[in-house]
């Protein structure tokens, strides 16, 4: 766990240490009491009974949920594969010298950043079919996720480009490279490396977004949980299991993001050594990119 904050505290003396020990003992008691209270509440309503949990130890039920997890990963993976390059292109569009391109990309990004994913989903579920186009359920989920995520990723990429030392681009120009060459050969490769940790943590939020498959009846993990819950009448157990699976999968992804960030920070780079915060490193990281853009997940 994180060490006590250096900004706030000096090393404690003997009296402070005694107080800390007392507070530690007290907090252990309070935490244990709260857990006991929760368990008591569950037990009183028979939610801890063995029969209610038994299905989740059996392979057919587990396989059913695993199939949901596989579809979740499939939807998230497909969406990521499309949204990553789309986001990069949108960022390039926003940084482009052509006014029309800039306005179009900017409008797209601002629109899909400020609209909830669920609304886009309903447009695809209820609006577009009436215009005569229908998509398979998989794409009804993936396309809205791609639209919203690519807008968020565009801001991440743009932040990376803007955070790069302008000297890099100037050096490129000084060598006689054209605008496009500077972007592709000098700026983009470095910018992408700067934002890799943020991109990975965006994947967590993308995976969380796929739970909206629940709404379009795409049988992903949460939806499978719903079906299993109504089949066994154990909603609490089913949803709890599903939630734990999500936490485990996403925590693994977050770990990956942190490992990448640590690796990035180890490099002797003036930019990342100053390390403003998690996410986009560098002192000039623009305000547009919070350490993680929040989608409606």
């Amino acid at each position: 766990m994180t060490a006590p904050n250096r900004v706030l505290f000096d090393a404690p003396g003997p009296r402070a240490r005694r107080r800390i020990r007392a507070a530690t003992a007290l907090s252990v008691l309070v935490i244990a009491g709260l857990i006991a209270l929760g368990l008591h509440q569950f037990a009183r309503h028979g939610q801890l009974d063995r029969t209610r949990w038994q299905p989740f130890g059996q392979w057919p039920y587990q396989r059913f949920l695993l199939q949901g997890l596989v579809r979740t990963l499939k939807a998230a993976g497909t969406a990521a594969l499309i949204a990553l390059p789309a986001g990069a292109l949108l960022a390039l569009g926003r940084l482009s010298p052509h006014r029309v391109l800039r306005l179009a990309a900017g409008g797209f990004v601002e629109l899909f950043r400020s609209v909830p994913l669920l609304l886009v989903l309903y447009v695809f579920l209820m609006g577009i079919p009436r215009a005569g186009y229908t998509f398979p359920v998989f794409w009804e989920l993936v396309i809205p996720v791609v639209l919203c995520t690519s807008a968020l990723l565009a801001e991440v990429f743009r932040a990376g480009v803007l955070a790069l030392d302008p000297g890099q681009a100037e050096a490129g120009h000084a060598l006689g490279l054209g605008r496009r060459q500077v972007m592709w050969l000098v700026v983009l490769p470095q910018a992408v490396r700067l934002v890799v940790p943020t991109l990975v943590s965006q994947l967590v939020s993308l995976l969380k977004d796929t739970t909206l498959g629940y709404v379009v009846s795409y049988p992903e993990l949460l939806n499978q949980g719903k079906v299993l819950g109504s089949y066994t009448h154990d909603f609490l157990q089913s949803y709890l299991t599903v939630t734990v699976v999500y936490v485990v999968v996403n925590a693994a992804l977050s770990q990956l993001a942190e490992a990448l960030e640590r690796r990035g920070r180890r490099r002797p780079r003036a930019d990342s050594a100053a390390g403003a915060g998690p996410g986009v490193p560098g002192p000039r990281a623009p305000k547009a990119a919070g350490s993680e853009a929040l989608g409606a997940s």
Partner: protein
Amino acid sequence: MREVVAHIGYLAGGLGTTLELSLLGFAGAVVLGTLLTVMRVGPVLPLRVVGTLYVEVFRNVPLLAFLVLFVFGLPDAGITYSLFTSEAVCLALYFAAYVCEAVRAGINAVPVGQAEAARAIGMTFGQSLALVILPQAFRTMVQPLANIFIGVVLSSSLGAAVGVSELIGRTQWLDLQYDEPVPTFLLATAGYVLVTLTVALLAGRLQKRMAVRR
């Protein structure tokens, strides 16, 4: 088209519910998130462990899964609230983790020398916190907190999936009633864009005014 225009008051009411949910959820998240920060930066180990675990778990839970667990699961254990309350509580619990990260980053952005100077001139812990550290920390937190608020507004739409009649829920109902997807969805979009742009604009101004040159 005419029916949809006639129901503009109904949609506006939905926007009102969205805002109510967002404000309640955000306020709860700020209070709980600040509390979590206190736990995480303090010297008491068990509290630090609980705070860290809380943030790790809630940042990795999909909000919809948590909402569904809360609304359809917990009643089995005898814990029942109204849909509106459930969603406000879920938003608060979920976004508290993000607020905690923002507040912690804000405190860590204050140079150590500031706190050392405060202690050196004999300020107590409370004084140095209230007069020196927090005022500086809050200035760097404006933008992240505004982003979180926008996140709360957008996420409050998930209430529609469990039956809360906020902006999206009402949009969907209108669309089913009158089969007019274009105007209904346009109006809902306008509602959300209006709110998020306003928040972003206000936050930008506030941040410019409060910016610290370091």
